[in-house]
């Protein structure tokens, strides 16, 4: 479902973030992306939902060629990919409900189906009773759960998360991981960049280690492998 071949990324300022990536990720996999800061993890993730375009190489996501994809088709690619970030990226003036519902308004879902589905995912992440809160009234862990709810409300085939537990304390992080595992169990592919040695070494999954823009290691049921 995701295939990269000889992917290079050089930013306009001359920094080369990726130096020839070849990778294949199948539907339903759970993949950790690890590596030192500045290694190119975020860049790798941004290429998948077409936030950035590669300078060279080919990328296929859900059988779509991201190199030849036109600007106007990018929104449709993203409707099949949920994204979760370290800083949650919630709309501050919208309630929890509205934040999640937004992803369905975009695809012009009917109000009835929307209400049902939003309450369903809020229930799934344990926030049904906080639907009317705004993000500022929630803890970090709760905000991240809203972001996850929004990411999966569309039934995407792929969920990508860039350090989703980066701002959270350990207890909250485990809770987020439990939710992500559940989502993965229902068949959604998950790609997660992380710095958490505990998580990677406890919940064993495929590990792709990126160093200096190259894949240094790619192991099933791998270890975190770094000291920090």
């Amino acid at each position: 479902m995701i295939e990269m071949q000889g992917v290079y990324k050089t930013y306009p300022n001359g920094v080369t973030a990726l130096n020839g990536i070849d990778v294949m990720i199948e539907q339903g996999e759970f993949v950790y992306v690890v590596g030192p800061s500045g290694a190119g993890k975020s860049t790798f993730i941004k290429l998948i939902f077409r936030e950035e375009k590669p300078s060279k190489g080919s990328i296929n996501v859900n059988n779509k060629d991201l190199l030849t994809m036109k600007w106007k088709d990018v929104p449709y690619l993203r409707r099949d990919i949920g994204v979760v970030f370290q800083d949650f990226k919630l709309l501050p003036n919208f309630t929890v409900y509205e934040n999640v519902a937004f992803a369905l308004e975009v695809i012009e879902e009917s109000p009835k189906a929307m209400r049902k589905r939003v309450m369903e995912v809020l229930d799934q992440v344990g926030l049904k009773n906080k639907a009317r809160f705004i993000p500022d009234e929630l803890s970090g862990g709760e905000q991240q759960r809203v972001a996850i709810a929004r990411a999966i409300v569309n039934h995407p085939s792929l969920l990508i998360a860039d350090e989703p537990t980066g701002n959270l304390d350990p207890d909250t992080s485990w809770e987020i991981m439990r939710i992500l595992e559940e989502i993965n169990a229902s068949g959604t592919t998950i790609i997660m960049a992380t710095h958490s040695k505990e998580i990677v070494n406890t919940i064993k999954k495929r590990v792709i280690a990126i160093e200096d823009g190259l894949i240094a290691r790619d192991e099933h049921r791998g270890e975190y492998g770094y000291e920090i």
Partner: protein
Amino acid sequence: MKFRTLKRHFREGAKNILRNSWMTIASVGAVTTTLILVGAFLVLMFNLNHIADKLEEDVQIKALVDLTADDAEIEAVGEAINKIPEVSSVEFSTKEEELADLVKSMGEEGEVWELYEQDNPLNHAYIIKATDPLDTESIAKKIKKIDNIENVTFGQEAVQNLFKFNQLARNIGLALIIGLIFTAIFLISNTIKITIMARKREIGIMKLVGATNGFIRWPFFVEGMLLGVLGSIVPIAVIVTGYYYISENVSAFKQFNFVELLPFSPFAWQISLIILLIGASIGVWGSVMSVRKFLKV
């Protein structure tokens, strides 16, 4: 786009206006100022045009026929004038009619002229109108060359000056209005741009969940339109009230009775509609211009 989505865009656009109340006040203020000026100019221009058209219509050439001419010769003069292509109408006025006109136009002083009724010293005349008032002078020259014409008169200087003044007023007015409108568009697009900078993050988030540019743009489009419409309320009130006052008073002054303004109704309503449309367009244009750049992210 489904109707509920359109409703959603209007709701979001209206919410933005309430949410960014300071920006709303700033943009509405800018549009209001502009539209008051534009409205005043429009009223002035339409009325100048109207007055000029009236005066132009009144421009006529009077060709005096020689006192010695007999009936056949008078007839021939009329036919010759009729043959000039630029002439739209020719009317014969006997010297008796000419005297009656004169007496009437002089009012009380004219009564002395009634003495001449037995021994009328005036000429028979032809009253000529041009198809295009601008041709008045050249027609007058052609008529002068016809036999048995004693003299040709028309308000030479007045006519030429009127035409020049009119053209100048139109051009200056148009330039000013266009300038003002662009200033307002610039102001609106800047105020919206500031609110968008603050909302840049939000736009980024919307794109993450797969919102199309159109979907993101719509609420801004609505917001711009509402700002423009809100900004046209005060100008419409000012122009309608002001014009009512002016049109009531101008007709009350005898000295101004040659000035005939466009009637309050429907003119005031037409101007109101124009102001509303200009306001909405300024708003829409301003918002579309300011969002464009941010959508390329």
